[in-house]
């Protein structure tokens, strides 16, 4: 009961003191405000990026491997090394599909960039994908309407095309695209289906793709100088590592690599992207923690400084309080509460600013930012940690004052 009264009274006294020095108290909290705002905003940014990233790469499929000439992540000048590798061919993909025991589906894919036309409507920057019916499985293809390529379409190299939703919308704003003949890079194709809307992937519009049989692709847009990317969906996600070994071995055998030769292909997967991403955000975290720690330290020293001034100014008051019966602990508590309250003011303003900033960032830039509840609790932790740490010295200085000298202080 006594301690409750003591804390409550301490809060009233501290509140009173802060109110009498509004300007000073606010300025003192600046360091804390900047620190908290920075930390929370950066954390919110990282959180937002994480969420976006996870959403994005899930479209790659966690149980799909991508065998290609180039790895997804390249270091330094290694591009030139990879460029000189032999191209991967459709034949190799077929052999791989025959030999692999862990693959559920194997889809060779070729990409090129061609304009698409239907009557007056023309679309630049669309990506033409040549692939097989297996792509339905490896890419988790879901048709909006119509159908995907069939084995028949592929084996007969039929000039048929499945459109991404955006292409369909732009070319056929008011009509049904199914059965219509459109022009892909100067060649006629018949629309057989439209893919469901997917959004963007790191700035790529995933709905600006058009899918045709791989044989038709090669005959219209060329087979030479193109390296195939082989998407392999593994029978189950836990087999991923095993499948990577199997596919690597099979590819080496298919390509006739002797034991002393290095792989001349790359096996890419979503996890590797995640690792790289986490390394990148690790740097961001370090920056956040660094900036935050420095400004909180500066803010804390500011609080300590202002409390020392306050103790000196209020020496007489401390003397009076001691004369009428305040114990050391009472005075200590009073100044610690004052310190924590200054901090609380700073952290509250900081959190509010950070929430506002996060909103502004997510509205005005493509960067997503999301503030989560634990960040606010983290803020509460800061309040007590900084308030107590930097308050303890001035508070104990006040508590140790000799009442006689304090009463005599002018």
């Amino acid at each position: 009961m006594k301690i409750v009264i003591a804390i409550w009274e301490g809060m009233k006294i501290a509140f009173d003191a802060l109110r009498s020095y509004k300007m000073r108290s606010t300025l003192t909290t600046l360091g804390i405000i900047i620190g908290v705002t920075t930390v929370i905003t950066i954390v919110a940014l990282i959180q937002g990026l994480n969420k976006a990233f996870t959403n994005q790469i899930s479209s790659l499929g966690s149980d799909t491997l991508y065998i290609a000439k180039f790895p997804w992540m390249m270091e330094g000048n290694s591009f030139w090394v990879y460029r000189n590798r032999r191209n991967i061919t459709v034949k190799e993909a077929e052999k791989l599909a025959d030999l692999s025991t862990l693959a559920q589906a194997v889809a060779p894919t070729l990409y090129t960039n061609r304009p698409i036309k239907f009557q007056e409507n023309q679309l630049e920057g669309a990506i033409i994908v040549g692939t097989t019916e297996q792509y339905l499985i490896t890419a988790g293809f879901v048709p909006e309407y119509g159908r995907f390529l069939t084995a028949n379409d592929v084996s007969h190299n039929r000039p048929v095309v499945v459109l991404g939703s955006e292409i369909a919308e732009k070319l056929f704003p008011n009509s049904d695209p199914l059965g219509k003949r459109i022009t892909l890079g100067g060649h006629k194709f018949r629309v057989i289906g439209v893919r469901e809307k997917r959004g963007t992937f790191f700035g790529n519009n995933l709905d600006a793709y058009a899918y045709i049989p791989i044989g038709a692709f090669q005959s219209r847009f060329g087979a030479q100088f193109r390296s195939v990317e082989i998407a392999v969906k593994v029978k189950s996600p836990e087999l991923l590592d095993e499948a990577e070994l199997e596919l690597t071995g099979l590819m080496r055998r298919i390509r006739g690599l002797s034991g002393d030769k290095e792989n001349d292909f790359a096996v890419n997967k979503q996890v590797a992207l995640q690792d790289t991403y986490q390394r990148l955000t690790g740097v961001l975290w370090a920056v956040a923690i660094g900036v935050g720690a420095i400004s909180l330290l500066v803010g804390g020293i500011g609080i300590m400084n202002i409390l020392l001034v306050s103790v000196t100014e209020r020496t007489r008051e401390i003397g009076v309080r001691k004369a009428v019966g305040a114990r050391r602990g009472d005075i200590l508590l009073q100044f610690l509460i004052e310190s924590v309250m200054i901090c609380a003011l700073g952290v509250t303003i900081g959190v509010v600013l950070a929430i506002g900033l996060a909103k502004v960032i997510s509205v005005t830039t493509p960067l997503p930012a999301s503030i989560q509840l634990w960040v606010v609790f983290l803020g509460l932790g800061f309040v007590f940690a900084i308030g107590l740490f930097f308050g303890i010295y001035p508070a104990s200085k006040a508590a140790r004052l000799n009442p006689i000298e304090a009463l005599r202080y002018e």
Partner: protein
Amino acid sequence: MLIQLENITKNYQVGTVTVTALQGIRMDIDHNEYVAIMGPSGSGKSTLMNILGCLDTPSSGSYLLNNNRISDLDDDRLAEIRNREIGFVFQTFNLLPRANALQNVELPLIYRGLPAAKRRTQARDALASVGLADRMDHKPNELSGGQRQRVAIARALVNNPSIILADEPTGNLDSRTGDEIMEIFEGLHEAGNTIILVTHEEYIAEHTDRIVRLRDGLIERDEAANGGH
């Protein structure tokens, strides 16, 4: 006996020099006495008052207050004794400038740990007893000197202390207001309180029943006041 001082000494270390402020004080004060402590500056009267008020402890000797030995208590125990047993009235009032009269009077009760409602009633009563029932929510700078000193007296009274210890309580007041304050002390004395007054003014000391005169850290004379009652 309320107060028993036995051979009290007090030395201060000033740099390398030891200054003796009290050289051996022996004095008893009984309940409901009204005592003035007098002496020129440097006579040790402030030191004696600090020791009596439990703001300081003697270098040697024994101080019994209500038969409790005070002379060697630690800071926190002394704070409790000050809270319960001593009511201070200072020359410069020493009120908290940002608190109103009622809050100033409540202060000792806060450190006693009383709940707010009880504090308020007790503080109101104390203020009413010094005639300030209508000034409770005034801040010190909205009060005259005499009114401020009355707030300070109310604060000293509020905990029903064993001793009211007043250090030059009229020193900052004009003589008419000073007289008013002295009347309040007289009333308190008649109501049964023990009052110790530190002063260097004869006519103030004349209000009391007993005058203790200090010189060079010793009691020079301890006599009944002749002008008093």
